[in-house]
């Protein structure tokens, strides 16, 4: 593409999780003196734990009850967080800006009506005529609106309807790779001048048995009493899903300056790739991606928000990669933010990027989130944060978030 890449600023953050709603609920973690503890529901889905969403007053971001009724949980969480991000960036309600805001969403499956599924399965029990019975049961059991809750692209559709974001709309899928593809897409379009203003993110409703089933088929879930991410490896590994909605407003620097929007931080870049993980390839791939992304970075302490899920063996491979950074003079200060808010799958990278931008703007990093010894104390202004995304099954990627060099950081 002709011309130098344009700087990508984070000018809005919308975050809801088990810890609460909005910037301040999450900024409260950002101090060496903070003692954040995960919020968990360990009983409802035993032997699985989940991080439940903090209670929300949905009407603050989704005023129409009819809109709320047309969505299921994951969509309501996402639409709510998207609204927070738009308001934070000063875009909400600005028709001229919303008309050219590009929407980039990372999404998985919508929600099933698990009660209907169970009714059908019980009626089918022991019967051979699956097809006929399913037809007898399904047409009366399925609700038309639920279909729209199940389509991956309907989180984006609902954000357009509720918040009037209409510039463009793309939904990426593929578990954690969806988050990488979405962030990478928006950042590259801004850098290359293919767009100025983007709303990027995703959401996960962890409190769903149908979601748990999808991941437990591959034995990806952590079972039993809660442990932080780095302490699951020797017991077989696994992730603890966390309900989360995370959206960022990403904006070309010139566009933000022209409208007087102040940045939290800039996204220097997002890089990604895939590999087979049979012989520890993810660690080597991490180093190659780091060399691409961070070639101009000065050495020394490097705060890392690791998106590690806790699933074996990739969590250990990611740790091998991070520990190998010291041979290049970097001193990685690691925090697996999944230990605190749970694993957000498609929304996990956006959550990490939001926390990174927040730590940079507040000039304070998170305290260690466990006693594993992996996470060492750090005091001071992070200035830059490496966010990692090594998917529980596939896909490796990194994002580098840095302080804006001069002027008005918020």
């Amino acid at each position, binding site marked *: *593409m*002709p011309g130098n890449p344009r700087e990508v600023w984070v000018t809005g953050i919308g975050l809801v999780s088990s810890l609460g709603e909005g910037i301040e609920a999450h900024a409260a973690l950002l101090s060496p003196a903070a003692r954040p503890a995960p919020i968990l529901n360990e009983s409802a889905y035993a032997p*699985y734990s989940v991080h439940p969403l903090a209670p929300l007053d949905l009407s603050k971001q989704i005023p129409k009850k009819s809109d709320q009724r047309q969505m299921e949980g994951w969509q309501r969480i996402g639409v709510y967080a998207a609204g927070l991000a738009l308001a934070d960036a000063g875009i909400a309600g600005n028709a001229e800006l919303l008309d050219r805001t590009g929407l980039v969403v990372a*999404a*998985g499956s*919508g929600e099933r009506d*698990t*009660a209907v*599924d*169970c009714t059908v399965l*019980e009626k*089918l029990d022991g019967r051979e005529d*699956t*097809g*006929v019975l*399913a*037809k007898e049961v*399904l*047409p009366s059991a*399925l609700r*038309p609106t639920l279909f*729209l809750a*199940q*389509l*991956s*692209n*309907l989180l984006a*559709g609902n954000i*357009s*309807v509720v918040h009037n*974001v*209409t*510039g*463009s*709309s*793309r939904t*990426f*899928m*593929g*578990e954690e*790779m*969806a988050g990488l*593809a979405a962030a990478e*897409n928006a950042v*590259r379009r801004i850098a*290359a001048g*293919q767009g100025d203003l983007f709303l990027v993110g995703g959401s996960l409703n962890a409190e769903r*048995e*149908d979601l748990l*089933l*999808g991941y437990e*088929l*591959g034995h990806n879930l952590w079972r039993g009493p809660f442990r932080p991410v780095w302490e699951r490896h020797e017991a077989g590994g696994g992730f603890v899903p966390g309900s989360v909605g995370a959206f960022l407003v990403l904006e070309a620097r010139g566009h933000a300056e022209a409208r007087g929007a102040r940045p939290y931080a800039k996204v220097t870049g997002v890089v*990604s*790739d*895939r590999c087979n993980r049979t012989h520890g390839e993810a660690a080597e791939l991490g180093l190659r991606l780091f060399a691409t992304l961070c070639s101009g970075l000065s050495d020394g302490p490097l705060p890392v928000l690791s998106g590690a899920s806790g699933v074996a063996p990739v969590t250990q491979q990611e740790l091998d990669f991070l520990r190998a950074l010291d041979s290049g003079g970097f001193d990685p200060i690691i925090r697996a933010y999944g230990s605190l808010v749970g694993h957000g799958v498609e929304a996990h990278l956006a959550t990490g990027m939001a926390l990174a931008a927040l730590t940079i703007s507040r000039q304070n990093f998170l305290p260690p989130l466990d006693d594993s010894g992996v996470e060492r104390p750090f005091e001071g202004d992070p200035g830059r944060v490496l966010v990692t995304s090594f*998917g529980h*099954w*596939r896909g490796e*990627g990194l994002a580098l978030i840095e302080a804006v060099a001069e002027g008005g950081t918020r």
Partner: protein
Amino acid sequence: MRDSKGRPVVVVTGTGVVTSLGLGKAENWAKLTSGCSGIRRISRFPTDGLRTTIAGTVDFLDVTPFSAPALTMAMAAAAAEEALAEAEIGEKGAFPGPLFLATPPAELEWPQRRLLWEAHAGGELTGYKRLLAAARESRHADLQEKFQFASVAEHLACRFGTRGLPVSVSTACASGATAIQLGVEAIRRGETNAALCIGTDSSVQLEALIRFSLLSALSTRNDPPEAASRPFSKDRDGFVMAEGAGALVLESYERARARGAQILGVVKGCGEKADDYHRTRSRPDGTAIIGAIRNAIEDAGIAPHEIDYINAHGTSTPENDKMEYLSLKAVLGDHLEKTPISSNKSMIGHTLSAAGAIEAVFSLLTIRTGVVPPTINYRNPDPAIPLDVVPNEARRATVRTVLSNSFGFGGQNASLILAAL
């Protein structure tokens, strides 16, 4: 070579297609230009009692054991093989660029759910607790590898050796066009000289059929099946679900020329616009559809009167076909009357996530062969939609520039401008 905006020109050097009409371009094009329909009675599952019993299924590929993602993969792979063979690009299993895949959302279906239910028999557990126990007790790696959202793209990336993160995208019925747009943008940014763009969809499953039926979106004119899809006719009553895949090898013009590749056409412009009116209906004034078409024309750097043919979204629903006409009229004005427009969906049905890619392949064949495929089943024109729909029989015409439309549930609209070099 740069386009009017100083960007690398993006050309197509290989295409492949699978639809209910058959495997490959030769069979598809022969049938499409002779007005054959691929719509038939569904034999995959019993349909007694259902309001809709027909679809454009792909039943001729060997997919054992059968599942929707397995068919999605098989069709995508077949289309990609054809496109790669035509493009003669890269070593076998080492495509020199990324994969952009339009694919339907992944979801366990009733056979799998039932298998799990029966795997944990005799206990006290009920409902999803029983399914979860079955999942816990034995590893179902085969299910996990097929029913993750990344599964189809991962499989294709390994098979064809594409570079980087395999990208899966969904903009509902616009997905196939969006996959092409992603490839065009990556080449224009200079990130790659080639991209493999595929749209694939195997959604003719019992529950999906019932869901679309509950939205009153499907034609219920089951008899005869081939007469059900009648885009732009007054008596159109809904779309016909269908399966298929389309694949395109995109390259920068420079790289294609440098390696002496055959150039099949140019992707001149891509446009998109999201609707904020309703989850399944477009804004009555057509703002978003008009926006997508205008953006594509603007991106291509052409004037509306340069469009020689329109490959319509043309789903055969009362709503779509009316809105598509009104929006085209708003953008093309009087030029619309002189512009032939036809809907491939009259013959192959609505291939959903794959439609944009399949219809781009057919648009390029129109440009290269000078034959415009017809809109079949056009016996009862809708006076509110005065269009030259190329009724019932193919027509010879010199076509250099095609507008191809794709509009999706969720208000996600995309249009492409495809042209001769």
